[in-house]
């Protein structure tokens, strides 16, 4: 686990990749579970796609919660592609995570109905 503290990229050009931020609060079991789940989902469903994953520990950097307006922990924020999606919970519900992540852009294109 590499807690990074990168700032938000203000330039949002048309990137094809995914920018994912996982907000956690300390090394709680739930946070760890979320991370594990996330890594698995990324490797399984974002395979072949460009993605960048950041893990932000709010206990260490509380002021960063303001940026993405985090209330729930854990929260996975899909900053890119737009629109921003917030996926809260330990990511154990795969279906919901996928709807939120929308890796194939199917939702984007209106092909999948939103759950």
């Amino acid at each position, binding site marked *: 686990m590499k807690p990074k503290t990168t700032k938000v990229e203000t330039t949002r050009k048309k990137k094809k990749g995914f920018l994912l931020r996982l907000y956690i609060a300390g090394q709680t079991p739930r946070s760890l579970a979320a991370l594990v789940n996330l890594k698995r989902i990324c490797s399984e469903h974002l395979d072949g796609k460009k993605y960048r994953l950041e893990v932000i520990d*709010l206990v260490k950097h509380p002021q960063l919660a303001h940026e993405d307006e985090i209330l729930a*922990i854990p929260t996975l924020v899909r900053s890119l592609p737009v629109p921003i999606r*917030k996926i*809260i919970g330990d990511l154990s519900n795969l279906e919901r*995570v996928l709807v939120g992540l929308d890796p194939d852009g199917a939702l984007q294109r209106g092909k999948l109905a939103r759950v």
Partner: protein
Amino acid sequence: MPKRPQRSLETKSLPKAPTGISGLDEVSFGGLPRGRTTIVCGGPGCGKTMLGLEFIVRGAIEYNEPGVVLAFEETVAEMTRNVASLGFDLKDLIRRKKLFMEYVHIEPREIQETGEYDLEGLFIRVQNAVETVGAKRVMLDTLEALFSGFPNEGILRAEIRRLFRWLKDRNLSTVVTAEKGDGTLTRHGLEEYVSDCVILLDHRINEQVSTRRMRIVKYRGTRHGADEYPFLIDEDGISVLPITSMELHHSVSAQRIVSGVADLDAMLDGKGFYRGSSVMVSGTAGSGKTTMASTFAEASCQRAERCLFIGLEESDHQVARNMKSVGIDLQKWVRKGLLVHEAWRPTQYGMEMHLLRIHKLIEKVRPRAVVIDPVSNLINSTSRREVQSMLTRLIDYMKSAQITFLFTSLIHGGTALERTDEGISSLIDTWISLRDVELNGERNHVLHVLKSRGMAHSNQLREFVLTARGIQLRPPYVGPAGVLTGTSRLSQEARENADAVARQQDIERKRSEVQRKRRALEAQIEALKTEFSAEEKGLERDLEQFLKVQTQVTLNRAQMARSRNAGSRAAKKGARK
């Protein structure tokens, strides 16, 4: 204002955080519970956010307790703009680290629930905010937003309960706003978690006039006012109107002040009104009430005592113009700062708004006398009891501040003189009734002191006129037919004058008659005297003559005797004789 007596009970009850909101600290007996959470609930537009913001901002400015505002509905910029008109500079407070404001945007469509979670993010943010400024007060506006954003109510409620405990553990005085539910205090039943204090705000429209009410539904651990209190929101923020005193302990003054009409003072035991008393001037339309009120105001100014004149019927310029015609220059006193003349339309606001506005004016101006003309305009369509209650509060408040209060009341023609619409005759100390008396095709003004507590007042009906030198009372005329006024009095007076003149002339005539007779008599006496003295002289002369003759006769006899030589003896006798 006299201080409320300190009661020892208060120190044993809950410690409180003063709000700085006018009236609320009185109603809650000290403020909101310190270190606990207060829910402020109500419908949209009730003023919940305003109350919370004032609590935080005044806490920071007036009580040196920095605060945190976590807003879920309005942005920081919006809030800053909203309170800028109150004179609160939020940007400055933030800069000085007295205030921390954060806007949390919850967009439900953005959120996907995918398993277990908690709201630790919220906690972290609140903690961060509190630590940044060392806050003692927190406001959450509004927690309802969380319910729309996070569909799992179970988790949400648990977390909210945890949050309140968290805030309590850190001794943070918190205000949480919530929407009023149908039949419940809050839509999501937040009041179950917050058992310390719940304030309900209400904003209702009563016959097109909006009134705001506040009620402390629950305040555990302390006594509080349990009634509904009217409040208003204006350029100074929220003002709550509590009843000023539960008991009737006013200090009273025995000082007397003049009314401005010297003859009226004469009717009031020669001295005028008691300072701090309440005076009602009632009368039908056009009977001179405003003139009487203005005269009183001027008298106050002439004593260099500030007077507050509140007009609810005519604009201040109109009143000033009208009063000029009776020789009262109100503008002069306004310029000197001794008279504050405010006027507004009574239909604009509800009763409470009027009352509050008057309260605030009095607090600002600090007058020794207050005039309200007319009070009867405030009745519009609210109930009698409300008016009574309102006037009671006003009179109470003024008495405790030793302010002499004169107000006028319009009586509609046809109603009994002693009945007033407001039913407040028992509240006033002095009641001056102005009446128009109709007789012989004209109406004349008559004044009558119906009651005046604490003094021997005249019971006469006095006629008065409005002249260029103000109100002038005519000397009382009571003829055989009762009180007469106007031309009938004049004609009666003229008749009496004529009678008097006639009698006078009679007397003069008789007097001169007597004198004539005396002179005649004296002349007679003179004549008699003269006659008598002439006679007297005559008689004296005669007597003299007679004596002369007698002496001559005696001499002649002696001579004869001598010449006869009647004997030497006879001669010697004669010579010796």
